[in-house]
């Protein structure tokens, strides 16, 4: 399947974030950054997605949804944790119902720091995600 290896489809989910990183993920699609020129496509369907971009620190209620989305994605798949909250819980780590990072719930391949993560670093995270995806594909092939 080498012909589509450079064109990952992205699923974005807001796992209890403040919206800041989600808006920056959307900003990646718009004219200034325009990731579609690299073949990166935003999809709403987990069954079409190669890379899962998750923002936020994941509260109790969201665990099930994040796990569910991850399960529905076909293998090989890569998870990119976007923003400080997604990496470690960030400023909300002390809140009572926060898991403190996506990796407490599902395995994470790439961590993108920042509050809010800048579009440049999100794009960089996706590029690293492509490499991780390639490595996983080779392993399963």
């Amino acid at each position, binding site marked *: 399947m080498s012909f589509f290896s450079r064109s990952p489809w992205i699923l974005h989910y807001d796992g209890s974030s*403040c*919206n*800041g990183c989600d*808006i920056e993920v*959307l900003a990646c699609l*718009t*004219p200034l950054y325009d990731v579609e020129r690299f073949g990166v496509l935003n999809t709403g*369907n987990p069954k079409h997605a190669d890379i899962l971009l998750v923002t936020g620190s994941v509260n109790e209620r969201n665990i099930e949804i994040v796990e569910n989305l991850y399960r529905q994605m076909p293998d090989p798949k890569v998870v990119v944790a976007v923003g400080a909250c997604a990496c470690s819980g960030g*400023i909300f780590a002390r809140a009572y119902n926060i898991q403190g990072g996506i990796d407490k719930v599902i395995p994470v391949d790439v961590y993108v720091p920042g509050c*809010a993560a800048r579009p440049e670093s999100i794009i960089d995270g996706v590029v690293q995600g492509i490499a991780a995806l390639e490595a996983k594909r080779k392993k399963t092939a």
Partner: protein
Amino acid sequence: MRRTTIPFGPQHPVLPEPLVLDLILEDEKVIDAIPTIGYIHRGLEMMVERVEYTEMGFVVERICGICSFMHGMGYCVSLESIMNVEVPERAGWLRLIWAEISRIQSHLLWLGLGADAFGFENLFMHCWRMREQILDIFEKTTGGRIIHSVNRIGGVKRDISDSELAAILVQLQELGEAFKTTARVFGTDPSIAHRLGGVGVLSMEDARAVDAVGPMARASGIATDTRLIGANFYDRIELEPVTETAGDCLARVVVRLREIDQSIDIVRQAIEKMPKGEGLPLENKPRGNPNGEVFTRLEQPRGEVLYYVKANGTKNLERFRARTPTFANIPAMIKLVKGCDLADVPNIILTIDPCISCTER
């Protein structure tokens, strides 16, 4: 007829945030909508017990990434009135200018998302292209694109030089001119009029009955605007609430289009009226710990926000509560969704400009 229940969210392409609605349908008509919240709840009320009041401002800013500046401002204004700190004049004006620029940013963002929801992707791209220019202004003046952290209790952290302010005004006015082309598409395109006109009509009586706030209420003809109470230097600004009478989705778009022009004008007035010069005081540092309680109201891009802060003389606040505009507009949204076609649900939800992370905090 058999009823069907369609789950809407938490993961749904039309909204980047997890809003959950159970839509109960008869044929294509929605007869009931049951909202569920809690997917972005982070428990800010409990966090004040663990985070000191001096740091809490940065947490409050992160209630929401779209109106983050105004959340920080609301928190600082609340604590200033508890601690009797007077904000230096230039700092107050700077806050007002940043607040209005963030309103422009929020409306451009929303107009883009709205256009995406009714399937006009080109318009979405144009709105967000313009929004990037506003973010550049923010980055230049505060250092952050989304989260600014310039509010301090007692003032602001950074100054904007007079020459820079003049340049910002020119940039905003040019953007306002350039935006007219895009705004004309919203106003005149027949497919948009067909998609949004007459959809989700909220009459003036209904808007009062469900206590709609912000652009939602103004699109139904209610001239309500919290800025009119005059706090935070708004008493020195001439402003007329933007109202429309149709109360449908299109009217809510038009209100926001016109508010962009209004905000640019407010920034112009503020730059004219603020005290000029270098090195003016920007911050009066508060002393001791806060003791007392206060209600603060601000007009956010989505409508009126209300903060309740209660302090007891210790480093941690006793209560902190924010009633955000989206929360106030949810009853209006549920009212509109009942009886509409399934295909109109995304448009109706988006025209209240929902910010779920504000709502759930």
